[in-house]
């Protein structure tokens, strides 16, 4: 029998285990908030999508059928569109990975100045909608674009980079590779240096070290990024349309609905297939990731060893980075040149320069700019309002089935913009605004709501993360000093979430500003058109390319400024609330 002072370790009933239920015994206010959020999600996400599914599976008289799907797969054109879409999505993910994996590895592994350059690379492509870049890339890499003109002159050989589906794959890969780059970089950074040392200690090094230890540990990050690229490319409408590649699923659905009409079942069948593939890709990645949280960094442990590059290695790394940077920047450069070009055709660079496209855009397009600011501002506002409400209901109340609000809101990630738009048009067909003759599907409200629903997951994640970082005792302390829950939300919760709320607002705003697929279907009059629609419209004609590019430059500037601002805000709030390391001990 050993004498002991050690307290027996009892079952850990955490001090906050029962917090949520304590006083927030689901009051009427909580029920009301939950009901409002649910109504919004049902009306503008669940029911429209359900309506699409319903239409795909019934005859015009309402009898259930699989005939539409049989018809889809018996048409050669549709089969081709289906396989083309799969091919383009898979190849885009593959090429994006080829660009991203070496870059991610360079940043984490080696100590060199290129790291900052790579981080910039990670954001640049995302600040421009891919369909804008598509036109510019055609001018640079197309059959009679700058690169092939020069190549042809010097070597007599031309590269079919922009021919057919290649063009779509090329544009999508250089637009979406940052998703893989960012996810993979984070995953690599989280690997505990001891993992590598253990492998080295057991005699594993070089390529085997990378392929047996480092890459498998970072795999979850890679899969998350790659599946995102797949889904985004599979659902993209703007790029193939601008490049004239209509034999893919999204353009087919668009053409069916706009040309054959809202009654054509093929549009609905395609919609269902797109949703199923989006969900499948996400489910697959969730499955791969399940139980593989490899964030192995231990307390006090370092991450992967950084090494100095050999001169030769350094040269190779820089060469790769510069090459990628050139390609990645080419659409930006191309759009800029195009917006300033008087004539640019069959020549490596424009023949003459002018500012008149900008004048045209400011003259004709100010309404579009105003529309974009209005729709995106309102949509982002709705998103943070819903985001804060859902986050609070989920993390701080015991509202029954509160998790469902989160799941439903997040599910909108799997709904392509064009599918949502088709659902709106179908579900609200013939519905008029209360008290007027105005068709609700003919108003800009629908465009704005589609933006809000599509971008809700971004704002929601941002709000949830912000609230999760708030220790419940911060609110308890307020209540302990006499603040009611509503007062404590106002005086403590919202001010402390401000950074996250603003970041969510900006993310929703800028991603909504470049949304094209829902916009194309839902814009019913030119006076309602936002910038993205305007760019697309201008780009349809050769004469409109200049003004279109000028509008594109403006969109890039808006998005770039927004991205930068949100970055600054997040950094600042982050540093403000962290203990200052040294001067704390005053």
């Amino acid at each position, binding site marked *: 029998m050993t004498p002991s002072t050690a307290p027996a370790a009892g079952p850990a009933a955490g001090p906050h285990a029962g917090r949520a239920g304590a006083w927030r015994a689901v009051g009427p206010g909580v029920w009301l908030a939950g009901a409002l959020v649910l109504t919004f999600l049902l009306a503008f996400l669940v029911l429209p999508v359900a309506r699409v599914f319903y239409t795909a599976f019934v005859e015009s008289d309402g009898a259930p059928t699989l005939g539409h799907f049989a018809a889809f797969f018996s048409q050669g054109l549709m089969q081709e569109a289906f396989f083309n879409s799969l091919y383009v999505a898979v190849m885009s993910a593959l090429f994006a990975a080829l660009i991203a994996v070496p870059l991610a590895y360079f940043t984490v592994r080696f100590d060199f100045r290129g790291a900052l350059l790579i981080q910039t690379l990670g954001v640049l492509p995302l600040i421009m909608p891919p369909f804008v870049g598509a036109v510019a890339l055609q001018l640079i890499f197309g059959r009679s674009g700058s690169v092939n003109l020069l190549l042809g002159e010097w070597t007599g050989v031309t590269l079919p980079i922009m021919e057919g589906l290649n063009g779509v794959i090329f544009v999508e890969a250089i637009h979406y590779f940052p998703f893989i780059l960012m996810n993979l970089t984070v995953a690599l950074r989280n690997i505990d240096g001891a993992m590598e040392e253990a492998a080295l200690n057991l005699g594993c090094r070089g390529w085997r070290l990378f392929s047996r230890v480092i890459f498998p540990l970072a795999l979850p990050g890679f899969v998350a990024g790659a599946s995102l690229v797949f889904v985004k490319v599979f659902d993209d409408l703007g790029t193939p349309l601008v490049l004239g590649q209509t034999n893919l699923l999204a353009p087919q659905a668009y053409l069916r609905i706009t040309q054959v009409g809202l009654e054509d079942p093929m549009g609905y069948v395609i919609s269902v297939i797109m949703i199923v593939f989006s969900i499948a890709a996400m489910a697959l990645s969730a499955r791969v990731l399940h139980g593989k949280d490899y964030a192995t960094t231990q307390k006090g442990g370092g991450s992967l060893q950084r090494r100095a590059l050999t001169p030769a290695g350094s040269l190779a790394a820089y060469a790769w980075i510069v090459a990628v940077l050139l390609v990645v920047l080419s659409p930006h450069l191309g759009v800029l040149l195009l917006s300033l070009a008087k004539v640019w055709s069959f020549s490596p660079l424009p023949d003459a320069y002018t500012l008149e496209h900008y004048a045209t855009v400011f003259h004709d397009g100010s309404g579009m700019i105003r529309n974009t600011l209005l729709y995106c501002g309102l949509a982002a506002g709705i998103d943070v309002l819903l985001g804060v409400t859902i986050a609070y209901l989920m993390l701080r109340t015991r509202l029954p089935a509160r998790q469902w609000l989160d799941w439903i809101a997040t599910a909108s990630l799997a709904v392509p913009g064009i599918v949502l738009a088709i659902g709106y048009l179908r579900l609200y067909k013939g519905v008029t605004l209360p008290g007027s003759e105005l068709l609700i599907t003919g108003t800009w409200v629908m465009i704005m709501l589609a933006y809000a629903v599509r971008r809700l997951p971004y704002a929601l994640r941002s709000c949830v993360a912000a609230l999760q970082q708030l*220790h419940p005792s911060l609110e308890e302390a307020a209540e302990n000093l006499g603040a009611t829950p509503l007062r404590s939300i106002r005086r403590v919760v919202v001010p402390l979430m401000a950074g996250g709320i603003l970041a969510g607002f900006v993310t929703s705003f800028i991603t909504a500003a470049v949304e094209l697929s829902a916009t194309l279907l839902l814009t019913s009059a030119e006076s309602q058109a936002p910038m993205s629609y305007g760019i697309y419209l201008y780009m349809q004609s050769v004469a409109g390319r200049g003004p279109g590019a000028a509008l594109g430059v403006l969109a890039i500037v808006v998005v770039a400024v927004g991205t930068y601002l949100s970055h600054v805000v997040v950094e600042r709030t982050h540093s403000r609330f962290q203990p200052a390391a040294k001067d704390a001990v005053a």
Partner: protein
Amino acid sequence: MKRVSVQCRQLRLAYGPSEVLKGVDLDVAAGEFFALLGPSGSGKSTLLRLIAGFARHHSGELLIDGVDVSAKAPWERNVGMVFQSYALWPHLSVWDNVAFGLVERRTDKATLRQKVGAALELVGLSAYAQRRPNQLSGGQQQRVALARTIVIEPQLLLLDEPLSNLDKTLRVQMRQELLAMQRRLGLTTVFVTHDQEEAMTTADRMAVLDGGVVQQVGTPTTLYDSPANAFVASFVGTMNLLPGRLLGRDPQGLRLDVDGVGEWTLPLADAASPTDGGVQLRVSFRPHALRLEPAGAPRDARHLWMPGTVEAAEFVGEFTRYRVRVGTQALAVDQAHQAGRQGFPVGGAVSLALDTSQVRLLAD
């Protein structure tokens, strides 16, 4: 300031199937500094949160100043709590943190300025009013948390492990400051801790909790000298606990059969001791109730002597703690240290002397 008492009557609380509090009865007298001591998971923090109103008991009564507060929300109780993490709001300055509760109480500006100033003065942080909490050291943050709580003049002060985030020297200093302030304000204070030294050095009285049940309530000395059961005995300080059996009472005292050691006769005077033969019990005594002598040293009659073998020795500073094998049992023995005195070698045979007046018999 009015001094209030707290009474818990048969408080029960369960989260789902796990019972956290199983009928807690407790009386905290007005103006008392009362400590709740227990291991993690014992229910001590839950009990404190219950008094603050952050958890709600399923049955029983909770009286503050004689009034049942069960139905009152946290913001209606006027019970000040200092959180383990301090829970200072990072978006507000020190001044605004302290003023928070007064703003909620719609205090007029002049009074607010005067009270916040006085509270900061009290904790010695007047010069730091415009700083942000994250620009302060741990000890200063702790003082802000305290100022923020006492400025609302709560009827009761609750402290949830307030010293656990401080390093050792600071902990001792803050402990003394806390106590001095409590004495000055005369505020009834309930203090949760898992550190028995902290509880014993500060509390007027303390309660030891384990498994959601109050094991014993009393002054620190009572709990140390007369633990009610084996759990309290081993949780408060170090205790040798030997299982045994009562054989009977004869003129020399109680005769015991101690497992693995043999038969002992203890001249126990107190009448409360059990007398029935065959009762299972535990023989308990502190490490410093034993004395080590070289094997073969002369034996006196005041002590109970037994032979042993030193198995291990830890030099603590003020004393050396030996583990000595006696029969099949290992006993902890504390030997006061004096410079220049040779210790007993590990593996060596020794003679152990037990001061029988220090032995307590505990129910098994």
